């Protein structure tokens, strides 16, 4: 069963069973954005409320596999109440972790060895990710990466649509 426990960490299963920030917000004032994976039917709907430059509230609905739904839950917990700049930063960090070739977490146990020319990305600091680091194991299952990034892409789209930089 090598790897399976890397994918289905307890934190992930916990967020899948008991998703955080589940529900809707009235639109407007909230902004609604959908993420949809036509290949597998996974769906995430985000309701985002901004207060000046802060993502003051976020709610999630949708349905899909444990990875897509737990990632959305973990994301909502991580970004709620954060400044837009912090949220954008977190998105970048998370996407870096999810990119197979550039994944170099602090412990150096995963990912190809760097030849120094790969990218400008620096190693992802697990501290910055908190519970989100639990999703690191998804990188070992390339077809599931799109499950993990579904809600994050929706979040980016939502911020872009609102014009929040």
């Amino acid at each position, binding site marked *: 069963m090598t790897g399976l426990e890397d994918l289905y960490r307890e934190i992930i299963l916990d967020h899948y069973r008991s998703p955080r920030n589940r529900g809707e917000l009235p639109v407007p004032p909230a902004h609604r954005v959908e993420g949809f994976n036509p290949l597998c039917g996974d*769906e995430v709907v985000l309701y985002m409320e901004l207060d000046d430059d802060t993502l003051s509230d976020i709610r999630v609905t949708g349905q*899909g596999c444990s990875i897509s739904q737990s990632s959305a839950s973990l994301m909502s917990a991580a970004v709620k109440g954060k400044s837009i700049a912090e949220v954008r930063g977190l998105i970048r960090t998370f996407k870096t972790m999810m990119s197979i070739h550039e994944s170099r977490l602090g412990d150096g146990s995963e990912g190809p060895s760097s030849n120094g020319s790969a990218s400008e990305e620096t190693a992802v600091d697990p501290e910055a990710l908190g519970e989100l680091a639990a999703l690191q194991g998804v990188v070992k299952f390339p077809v599931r990466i799109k499950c993990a990034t579904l809600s994050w892409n929706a979040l980016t789209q939502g911020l872009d649509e609102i014009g929040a930089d």
Partner: protein
Amino acid sequence: MSSLAPKADFPLLSQQVHGRRIVYLDSASSSQRPQMVLDEMDDYYRTTHANVHRGIYTIAEEADRRYEAARMAVGGFIGAPDPEHEVVFTKNATEAINLVASSWGRCNLHAGDAVLLTDMDHHSNIVPWLILAEERSVELRWLDVDEQYRLDLSELDRQLDGVKLVACTAMSNVLGTIPPFAQIAERAHSAGALVLADAAQFVPHLPTDVRSLGCDFLAFSAHKMLGPTGIGVLWARRALLEEMPPFLGGGGMIRDVRRDGFRPNVLPWKFEAGTPPIAEAVGLGAAVGYLQATGMEAVRKHETNLTSYALDTLSERFGQDLRIFGPPDAEERGGVISFAYRDVHPHDMAQVLDQSGVCVRAGHHCTKPLMRRLGVSATARASLYLYNDESDVEALAEAMTKADTLFR
């Protein structure tokens, strides 16, 4: 009950994944192929490959002979009365259905005409008709799926009124349901409609005779019946094919080309533009030979027994936690077992099974209307073939208990 065909005939089945033997339960999506099919294709490329048609040298004539021999073998396999003219090679079943929609459909379907489809059909037998419906205001009607996972035929005669074509699966790729096709065809013909059978799941698993099915068009793919990818078949009654305009234009499908027009070739080449999948046809011919040597009656019997065993085993082991989407009686279904296990998402189920070397498909199986009807977004699906046996079913059940532990 051992497998009907020796697993040793299929090189892929001796591979390992994650240090375990492959338990291949995804033949409804694509089957594996025996060594002799690979050998035939290899031999073709090594000894006689040249382009077909018009070659005036020995190996080109031999390539032509092997290509046309495959056509005759395929025709014989499905009981085609006139295989020489009625068996058209396409890219796959999807292209075969698109050929009918594009060629026959554009000539025969006009605003206000109706086509009758079913809720249990694959997108390949839905979307070509949706395209046509949008293009020329053709009305689409639908046969429902009832609580027993059968087609609801209670309103069939009323629904057939004004219908030009019934396009229906001969076996559902999700439910395994085998509709009473001959009966549907008979009533359709009485109402003046033609009938197309999507037989992609039927031809590989049951003895097929186009006359007893009563269809006018029949489509299937080679890769689901031990043959290679890249080749499929459209069978249609000769009189229909004669009347139909070409589908794709290009080399091979013409008799003459001038600045102001062209004359199409005779059947079946009228529908085979461009260099066809020659090695694939040779491979399909070999696959047909393998299936015939095994005997399609025996294939059907083996799969009925194994399906029955699988349904019993899974139900006994998992009880109320398992929901199987399909008829409970193996006699009225094929070896396609779609299921939901508690609230474990099908993708998670497939992922866990993979760790035990068990290959199943998870998703909507290109049947979104059916998924809506069933009230699910996806199912996990295990499908059986002549090389599967009880040990494969046991391995599936064993691996499912791991999902149970993980997601409890």
